[in-house]
């Protein structure tokens, strides 16, 4: 199978799974807003799935702390490849105000390879749509 052709199919059909890695719930609420009829991400082929086995994109929200780190790692390993990880919010991007906390993991990259960051505390749904569109652009190139 032609890889470019396959990646264009993949870009048009990104199924999203929501990984909540000790967030403050703020980004989660914005992700729920993103999936409402108002923003209608189904027109890009994006669909929220409940099982990580169906996922193409893991939306990771929250700074990863020591307690959830093994579970986040396991979720990533359970996802069928190719899978992309999008860090939503300032927490996966920089650690936010929890950066020097006693139970925050030192290097998030060791737990899960994040392909794309969406800064903002929380980012607006429009920003998340833009990020997914950029991911599509990478796949289509």
């Amino acid at each position: 199978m032609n890889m470019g052709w396959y990646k264009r199919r993949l870009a048009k059909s990104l199924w999203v799974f929501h990984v909540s890695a000790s967030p403050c719930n703020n980004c989660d609420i914005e992700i729920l807003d993103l999936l409402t009829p108002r923003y209608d991400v189904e027109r890009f082929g994006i669909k929220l799935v409940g099982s990580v086995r169906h996922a193409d994109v893991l939306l990771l929200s929250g700074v990863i702390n020591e307690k959830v780190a093994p579970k986040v790692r396991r979720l990533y390993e359970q996802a069928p490849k190719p899978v992309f990880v999008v860090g939503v919010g300032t927490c996966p991007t920089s650690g936010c105000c929890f950066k020097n906390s006693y139970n925050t993991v030192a290097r998030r990259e060791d737990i899960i390879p994040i392909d794309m960051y969406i800064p903002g505390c929380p980012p607006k749904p429009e920003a998340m749509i833009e990020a997914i569109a950029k991911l599509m652009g990478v796949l289509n190139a």
Partner: protein
Amino acid sequence: MSGLTLVYLLVFPGFLFTAVLGLVVGWVDRKVSARFQFRVGPPLFQNFNDFFKLLGKETILVKDGLHWLFVAAPLVAFGMLVLVSAMVGSALFFHSGYGGDLIVVMYLLMVYSIMVILGGSSTGNVFSSLGAGREIKLLLGDELAFILVCLVPIVKSGYKLRLDELLASQAGAGPFIGSVSGIIAFLIGLLCIQAKMALAPFHIPEAETEIVEGPLMEYSGPLLAFWKLNRFMMYVIFPFLLILLFFGGFRLEGWGILWAVLKYLLIVVLMIIIKNTNPRVRIDQAIRFFWKIAAPLAFIAVILAVLGV
């Protein structure tokens, strides 16, 4: 197996025709559902993109699961649906009683449900097992009503079982929907189909919000693609079966083509409207509905058909 049989099975009206039409009608379903919610909805080739994307993804076998059953279930279910589509389609389009009768169709459709149950329970996942259990209960609920519904055209055609003979007797005496028993049986049949396809309000086995797609939860990659394709093929098979049983089939010449499309779209749009305007019922409500309301009504329809009404 002769060459013509292979063409019937694999190209028209079997696998290729049913799959392509099913994926397009699946898009109609998603688009109309989107318009119900004042959304724009997905593009035309969305279901094709989903299918080809899933074909290229990794398949993960669950460590504690029964691997051969896990792999075989979606493929056997797919095979059953291809057989049913070839049988129903060749009766509708070529008026040939190829392969079997209505009882074989009912059996094959039941094997499909059993494959969902086996596939779901082969993983060892709790949610999958829950979904499989719910599928068993729903099958127990809708099967009686569905068989009674299928009895009505058999009785009205003078106890014919072959699909082409059912069509022939409707060509002589007018479609069965034109009688009281036909209308009752058609409406009950529509709801049974809703349950057999696991559409709302009977999407109890794979309730996404509580047991995350139930039997399909552990499936990934090509096997999931086949489950999704099965679902879309049923968007063709069940409306065609209802058209065959109650609407007198297709007449593919002149205005007959328009009527054929309208009959098909009528049933599909009715299904989509029922799907979009009803919340999910509980499993006990579903079984109570099928055993206490749908099955007695279908039984009354059978008696009316025997009396000739």
